């Protein structure tokens, strides 16, 4: 008797934008038995609650809302061989790729996979993670949780709101709460610049006269039961400056203070994690340190645009299908080493033998920059240089290195960003 209930060539863990694209691509690349396992009641992931538009400009060449983008991919997957289990939670992936999951409808299942694609996405950082002091009042929630309440369930989580963090989710929720009749008193940002897109600063804050406090943070939350008051202070670096306090009478604090890839299942399976991204260390084809286990989307590194999640997942899905069908990749490995100005890279490892024409390397820089040069070197010698007029930590950068150049590199390449 086998120790599993079902067998698939490719099992995709998560049915958000990454999982849908990976499954679609796996089918397009020859896999005949593909399964998506989704924990929510429908596929689409977080896009279903992102009712704003701005998705899809790169991939579909038009501006879609989140649910529309998810819907298009769900329809594309419907036309493939992929099976979908919704309302089913993956609990564990064993080293021999048995995916254990639980579901109300299907019971407890052990599914044998030839290849796995990890597409679990990310979670929001919380009040606890960033240690906001003060009372344990109700009315402090992450922007994403608020977004779900407002956009999917139709409930308002508050009337007078202070938002901490000016990433795009925070900015989007400032506008969304305003449109639904709440008063957004302030968006407070620890950094001296916003991590959100200019478009969102203009159309979510400026349009509604919502003030943005840069280099500020919340230093106290007051309220025995529900939030009554929030104190913000200017910061010098990360340290609040005494005497700069501003008080806001409000009933709600929304947090948009960063996203963390959800890799608990990956870690338990034995996948090596990059402490910089908190996602898996991946090769050029999105394979992790475990052979046959791939990863893509926000579970690898937090993306700025869903279009890039899609692109990455299409590569991961294709590679998973090829692996399931027997393709094995060998050859030497080039390590991508980050130098000043580069916070991380994806991929972290490149096998030149598996590159056809060129490899795309994604990374984020450490601060807002004007004219800059991205230098790629190997063994002290120049490999390539790229110019940028503008760089910011909020935006993913991409450089493309041709195979001919990679073939000349040593066992590592270094990437540095400098002012031009």
């Amino acid at each position, binding site marked *: 008797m086998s120790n599993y209930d079902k067998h698939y060539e490719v099992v995709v863990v998560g049915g958000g934008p990454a999982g849908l694209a990976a499954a679609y691509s796996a089918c397009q690349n020859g896999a005949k038995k593909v399964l998506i396992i989704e924990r929510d009641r429908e596929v689409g992931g977080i896009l279903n609650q992102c*009712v704003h*538009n701005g998705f899809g400009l790169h991939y579909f060449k038009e501006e879609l809302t989140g*649910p529309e983008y998810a819907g298009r991919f769900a329809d594309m997957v419907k036309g493939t061989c992929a099976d979908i289990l919704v309302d089913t939670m993956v609990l564990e992936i064993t080293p021999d790729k048995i995916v254990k999951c639980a579901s109300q409808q299907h019971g407890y299942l052990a599914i044998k996979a030839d290849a796995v694609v990890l597409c679990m996405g990310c979670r929001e950082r919380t009040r606890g993670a960033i240690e906001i002091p003060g009372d344990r009042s109700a009315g402090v929630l992450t922007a994403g949780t608020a977004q779900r309440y*407002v956009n999917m369930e139709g409930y308002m989580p508050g009337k007078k709101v202070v938002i901490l963090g000016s990433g795009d989710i925070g900015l989007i929720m400032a506008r969304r709460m305003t449109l639904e009749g709440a008063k957004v008193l302030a968006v407070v940002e620890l950094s001296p610049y916003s991590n959100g*897109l*200019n*478009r969102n600063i203009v159309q979510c804050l400026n349009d509604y006269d919502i003030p943005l406090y840069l280099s500020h943070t919340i230093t106290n939350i007051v309220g025995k039961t529900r939030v009554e008051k929030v104190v913000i202070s200017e910061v010098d670096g990360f340290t609040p400056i005494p005497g700069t306090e501003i008080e806001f009478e409000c009933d709600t604090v929304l947090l948009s203070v960063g996203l963390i890839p959800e890799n608990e299942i990956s870690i338990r399976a034995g996948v090596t994690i990059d402490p910089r991204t908190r996602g898996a260390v991946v090769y050029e084809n999105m394979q992790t340190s475990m052979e046959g286990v791939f990863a893509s989307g926000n579970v690898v590194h937090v993306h700025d645009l869903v279009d890039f999640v899609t692109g990455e997942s299409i590569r991961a899905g294709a590679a998973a299908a090829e692996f399931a069908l027997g393709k094995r990749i060998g050859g030497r490995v080039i390590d991508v080493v980050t130098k000043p100005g580069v916070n991380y890279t994806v991929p972290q490892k490149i096998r030149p033998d598996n590159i056809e024409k060129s490899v795309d390397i994604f990374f984020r820089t450490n601060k807002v920059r004007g004219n800059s040069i991205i230098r790629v070197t190997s063994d002290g010698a120049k490999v390539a240089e790229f110019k940028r*007029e503008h760089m910011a930590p909020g935006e993913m950068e991409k450089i493309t290195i041709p195979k001919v150049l990679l073939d000349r590199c040593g066992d590592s390449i270094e990437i540095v960003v400098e002012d031009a």
Partner: protein
Amino acid sequence: MKELICIVCPKGCHLKVDENDNYSVTGNDCPRGAEYGKKELTAPTRMITSTVKVRGGLYSRCPVKTAAPIPKGLIFEAMKLLDNVELQAPVRVGDVVVEDICGTGIAFIAARNL
């Protein structure tokens, strides 16, 4: 003279638009910035996305969007139109939810299947 941040690309040029000089734009690094600056001061428009009530669906709200950008000044009036709408599932992407937003001829349409 009005100051605004260009949103055409991530660079975010700080534009200065002179209303008294045929909306001439300075501070832009590219021609698209000049176009944006003029439009933003003469006829700014926005896409509006929101939700409406829906019965019989997986959720109690259905996302909607304007079929095209509407004049910025109409945002709150347009939002009010959604308060009294209640859809009945099934809803398809593109279903018209409000036919004509404040005489613009632009509709609110459903943004998902539900």
